């Protein structure tokens, strides 16, 4: 029996290596995407400084004044955030700067100092920057320093009321390629599962190859086991090639454990194979499977954080993103690759992905047809 299963796997592998289209879409295309997107967007930080502004006490006129002035600067892309979340985003490389505006107490102290006569020390405007991006930090501190100086002039005509207090934060040095690699890996696994499996199985069915297997004494379930083994092996190989090219050619860095990435590749591969089987079972023709696969794959490809951070996707569709099965895989892979997170930190998401796999397997078994 095992020899027979291996025969199926080996034969299917041979056919895969001889299928230039499958090789292109499975291996070359994801790498091309990574190369293109990585090259185009790798210098995006030079153009825009994604700046998180922390307003400890809203309604404070001094802080509001600084905020309004910051908003006037075209190069700053301002978002209002909590200090803790903003600093975490800075460490992840998702923000260029974090500006913490003076709180009510500082303003009161300043007002008191004015009333009592002698000048108190300036009120700090804390600016956190990423130590690993010297150019961004330099540019950012320069811009914020200029804004603060303007404010001093405009509001108080004194130069020492507000002062920039800069603090470096040791963020992981996440380049565009570091960010893209896990997303592209997850996307390639999803594509092989959804499009590859469904195209191959419906093709086998249409060309009556599955029916031929039924006429042999080989148990049908063992045949499918061999096919599943083939896809798992090719997915892992595709993933390894993408990982190697990403690291060696595009200089992407993986700060977490490689073995965790491999485990995630395996989990993702099995989950999307299962969904691919369900799609091929529900489709009568290869064209129908292709269309259904695309309908399922495309929204995930663009919404699950494959090419850009989820934060950039409009708020209104954020809830939808949480339900996509690719999202937890991308997040876990990115967590491991760029932030050295453990798999345990992603247990919830991976269990959700596993639930998708089980549900899809039930549909696949229920609807599977040999002809």
């Amino acid at each position, binding site marked *: 029996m095992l020899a*027979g299963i291996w025969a199926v796997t080996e034969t299917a592998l041979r056919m895969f290596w001889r299928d230039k289209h499958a090789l292109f879409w499975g291996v070359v295309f994801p790498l091309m995407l990574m190369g293109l997107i990585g090259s185009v967007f790798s210098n995006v930080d030079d153009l825009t400084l994604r700046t998180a502004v922390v307003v400890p006490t809203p309604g404070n006129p001094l802080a509001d004044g600084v905020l309004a002035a910051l908003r006037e600067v075209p190069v700053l892309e301002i978002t209002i955030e909590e200090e803790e979340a903003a600093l975490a985003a800075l460490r992840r490389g998702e923000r260029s700067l974090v500006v913490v505006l003076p709180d009510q107490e500082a303003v009161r102290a300043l007002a008191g100092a004015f009333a009592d006569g002698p000048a108190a020390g300036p009120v700090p405007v804390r600016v956190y920057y990423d130590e690993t991006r010297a150019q961004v930090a330099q540019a950012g501190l320069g811009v914020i320093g200029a804004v603060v100086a303007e404010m001093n002039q405009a509001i108080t005509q004194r130069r020492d009321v507000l002062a920039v207090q800069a603090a470096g934060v040791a963020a992981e040095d996440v380049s565009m390629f570091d960010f893209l690699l896990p997303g592209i890996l997850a996307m390639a696994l999803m594509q092989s599962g959804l499009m590859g499996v469904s195209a191959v199985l419906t093709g086998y069915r249409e060309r*009556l190859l599955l029916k031929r*297997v*039924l*006429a*042999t*004494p080989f148990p049908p379930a063992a045949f499918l086991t061999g096919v599943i083994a083939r896809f798992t092996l090719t997915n892992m190989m595709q993933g390894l090639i993408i990982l190697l090219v990403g690291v060696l050619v595009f200089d992407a860095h993986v700060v977490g454990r490689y073995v965790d990435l491999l485990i995630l590749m395996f989990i993702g591969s099995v989950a999307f194979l299962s969904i691919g089987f369900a799609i091929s079972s529900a489709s009568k023709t290869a064209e129908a499977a292709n269309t259904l696969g695309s309908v399922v794959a495309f929204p995930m490809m663009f919404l699950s954080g494959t090419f850009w951070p989820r934060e950039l996707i409009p708020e209104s569709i954020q809830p939808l993103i949480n339900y996509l099965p690719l999202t937890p895989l991308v997040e876990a892979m990115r967590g491991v690759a760029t932030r050295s997170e453990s798999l345990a930190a992603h247990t919830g998401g991976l269990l959700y992905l596993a639930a998708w796999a089980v549900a899809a397997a039930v549909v696949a078994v229920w609807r599977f047809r040999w002809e």
Partner: protein
Amino acid sequence: MIQVMGLEKEYHGRPVVRGVSFDVQPGEVVGLLGPNGAGKTTTLRMLATTLRPTRGTAKVAGYDIVQEPLKVRAHVGVLPTDPGLYGRLTAAENLRFYGQLCGLGGAALERRIDELLEWLGLAGAKHQRVEEFSKGMRQKLALARAVIHDPPVLILDEPTVGLDVLASRAVINFIRESRKAGRSVLFSSHYLLEADRVCDRVAIIVGGEICAFGTPGDVCRAVGAATLEDAFAYWVERRAGEVDRRVG
């Protein structure tokens, strides 16, 4: 070697094969002859265990098609209307794969592959990919695949359809050789002259029922026909007349 007993098949309550019974002995070639939609392929598929009968059963090589389908498959070679070969594999790789699915392997399988390719005149194309094969070459390879495990029973669905004269001759020779080797061969066909030449017995099936079964001579004599084609036309027209009367 094949014993069919009251085999019936219905699709959504519509009968397609109705109470078919016949037998094929070892070393005998039986032709299942009928017009399109007569139930030939459905009958063959039930005997090959790729389709479950609604009622009735059959024994193939001594095994029940409903109770022991895997054992039946181990003893039967099947040639479907569509060869269903893997285009990206070579001739030898296709045969090796199916041989392995039939539990064969090692040097014995390699010898068998060489022997079959030689026998069917495909030895020169052993390492050629099937996607480059002509229709006739594919059919020969599909025949080789059907007998890779040396089965005692062969079920061939329209084995010469769409082939040129030389390829058809090769297939007919293959059937004759198989008979000589002691195999039971059951095949379906539209080509009555060909059936007359190669079959020991024929079964005429119309509307899912067997109308006549016997040697070509017996079948002709039973209805006073001069040729098998006349006998075939007689049964098809008579059957159509019965349907007309029922509808009328």
